[in-house]
C-alpha cells in the first residue's frame, strides 16, 4: 500500500520534484512524470489514486523524484486548488532568468522522467 496520504476532497494530482535537475513534475496517465501540468493525471478514482501513490513511492525509491505529494484539483477549472500549487505550476510571476522558466520549458518541450524513455 502507498505511504502517500491525501486528505483532500475531490480530484487529485500527484506532484514531486525531479531528483537530478530539480524541476516540478506531475504524474501522467502513463505513470511517468512530466514538467507540464497539462500532462497530469487528475482523478477521483480511489484505485487510480492508490496506484499513483504507489508509483510515487516506487519512483522516489528509484531515485527519479523527490518528495511526492497529492494536491487537490478544482473540479471545474482543472487547476490546482491551492494558491501555492498554482505558483508551482506556473513558475515565478517575476522571472529574470534567461530563458525564463516558461520559455525554457516551451523550448525544450516537457521533460519526461521515468518509464522506458
Amino acid at each position, binding site marked *: 500500500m502507498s505511504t502517500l496520504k491525501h486528505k483532500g476532497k475531490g480530484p487529485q494530482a500527484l506532484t514531486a*520534484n525531479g*531528483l*537530478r*535537475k*530539480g*524541476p*516540478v513534475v506531475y504524474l501522467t496517465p502513463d505513470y511517468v512524470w512530466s514538467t507540464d501540468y497539462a500532462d497530469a493525471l487528475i482523478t477521483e478514482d480511489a484505485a487510480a489514486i492508490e496506484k499513483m501513490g504507489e508509483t510515487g513511492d516506487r519512483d*522516489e*525509491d*528509484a*531515485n527519479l523524484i*523527490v*518528495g511526492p505529494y497529492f494536491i487537490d484539483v478544482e473540479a471545474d477549472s482543472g487547476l490546482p486548488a*491551492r*494558491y*501555492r500549487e498554482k*505558483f*508551482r505550476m506556473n*513558475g*515565478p*510571476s*517575476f*522571472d*529574470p*532568468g*534567461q*530563458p*525564463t*522558466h516558461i520559455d*525554457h520549458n516551451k523550448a525544450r518541450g516537457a521533460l519526461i522522467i521515468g518509464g522506458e524513455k
Partner: protein
Amino acid sequence: MYRYDEFDHQFVRARTAQFRNQVERRLAGTITEDQFKPLRLMNGLYLQLHAYMLRVAIPYGTLSSKQMRQLGMIADKYDRGYGHFTTRQNIQFNWPELTAVPDILDDLADVEMHAIQTSGNCIRNVTSDPWSGSTADEIEDPRPTCEILRQWSSLHPEFTFLPRKFKIAVNGATEDRAAIRAHDIGIQIVRNDEGEVGYHVLVGGGLGRTPIMAQSLNPFVTREQLLPYLEACMRVYNRYGRRDNKYKARIKILVQEEGIDKFRSEVEKEYAALTPADIAVDQEEIDRITAYFSPPEYEDLSDVDTDYQRALETNAEFKSWNDNNVAAHKIAGYAIANISLKPIDGAPGDITGEQMRSVADMADSFSFGEIRATHEQNLVLANVKKADLFALWMRLKEAKLADDNIGLISDIICCPGMDYCALATARSIPIAQQIYERFKDPARQKAIGEMKIKISGCINACGHHHVGHIGILGLEKAGVENYQVKLGGDATETAAVGAVTGKGFEADELIDAIERMVDLYLDKKEGEERFLDTYRRIGMDPFKEVLYGAA
C-alpha cells in the same frame, strides 16, 4: 581582505570532495533523500518551490573582484544568468541542477568561497557593516573580528547541531549598519574609559515569528576574552535551548523564558569552568589576521576635486546619484559609493552575470578590487576617489546599475516570496515593484526622504518586515494574497519592533494604503523629521485613521 591559508584551502576542498561523493551516492540510490537532505543543507543546497537553490556564503559581505567574476561565471554557466543577494549578505542561485552542484562548489573553492554555514543549525555566516574600514564614526574596523569569528565557527564540531540556526553580527561604528540587535548575538565594538577597545555583547535578538530585540549581556568583553566568552554563551544555549519545539528553539526564546540575568549567570558559570587560553586567539594570530585588513594604499589627496565639483554642478543626473548613493569617507578625497540593486523593473537584490563582471571591473578600476554586499541587498565600493566618481557613475549607467535611490522609499528589502520560496505564503517581489512604480518620481522620493520599507512573504521574516519603518508581511487568506502592515520598526542602534496597524490589505489596496500613510507623514512632518521620527512623535492613531477611516 583575508586570503585563505593552507588550512582554509584544505578544509574547503575536502568538504567539496565529500559533497561530490554524497551527490554521487544519492544519485546511485545508496543514500536516501532523508539521509541526503541534511547533508545538502550543510552545503547550502535547498530544494525550493520550483527548483534547487544554492546559497553561497560571503563572509561579512566582503568580496574580491575575482570572486565576483566567478559568481558571474557560475550564474551564466550553471544558472539562468543571474544571482540574488540576500538580507544576510549572501548570494543565492535559483536554478542549479543537483548534478552540477559539485562542479559549482569546486569553482567556488577556486576563488576561496563555499556554501558552508548558509543553512542548518550551526553558527551561520557572520555579517557586518558594509562600510567597514571607511567611515569616520568607526571605533575599529570589525572585519578582523569577523574573520576570527569565521575561523572559530566554521565547522566548529561542538556547534554543528545546535537547537536551531545561530546568527552573529558585528558592528564597529557608532551607527549600527549591521542590525546587530536583530541577531542571536550582536557584537558592538566599543572603547572603554581607559581607551581599551573591546566588545559589548548583546544576546537574544531575532526576527521570524517572534521578533525580539537583543538585550545587553556584557557591556565590555576584552579582546582576549571574546572567543571564550562566546563559547560559553554557545554552550549555555546548546545545553538549555529548547529542542522540543522548532519554533521555540532560537536563543531569543531561551533568554526570554529564563530572563537575561539567569542567562548571564549561566554564561558566567560556564566561562569560569572553561580554560580561556585553550580557546582564545593569541596576539600574534590577531595581528596576522588584522594585517589582511590593513587600509588600502590611499593617495594623499585634497578633499576638494575641481572636476568632480564641476560635474556635480553641470550634470543634474549625476548630482542626484551622488546625493543619494555616495557617503562620506574618513580619508580626504575619497568616498563610499553605494550601488543600488533596486531597479524599477527588477527584483530587489537581483543582479545578472554580466552586471557582476561589470561591478568587478569597476572595483578593479576604482576601489582596490573589493566589493561589499549589504544586508539591504545592495552593493558597495567602499574606497572610491571623488575624482573617479563621475567615471564610475558612467560605467554604472552603462551596466544599468545607476539607480539613485539608496535609503529612499524604492530601496526596499524584499525576500523572494512565493515567486521562489517553498515557505512563502504570498508574493513580495511584485509588491516592491508596485511601490517603486507608485513613487517613481525622483522629486517625490527625495521629499519623502529616508524610508525603510521591508517586505516578507511569510512569518519567517527574511525580508526583515518587523524592523521596517513600514513593514509588510504577505499572508494567504482563502487563496488570496493579503498583506499585514507594521509601522515604526527600526534595525539600527535605536532598534524597535514595529507595531501592526490592524487588518491586512489585498495587493490592490496595499499601495494606496502606503501612499495615504506617506501623504500623512508629509503633511505632519516637522523640520527634518523622517517618516520614522514623525511616527514616533504622533503615534499610531493618525496612521490608523488614514488606513481604516475614523474609529
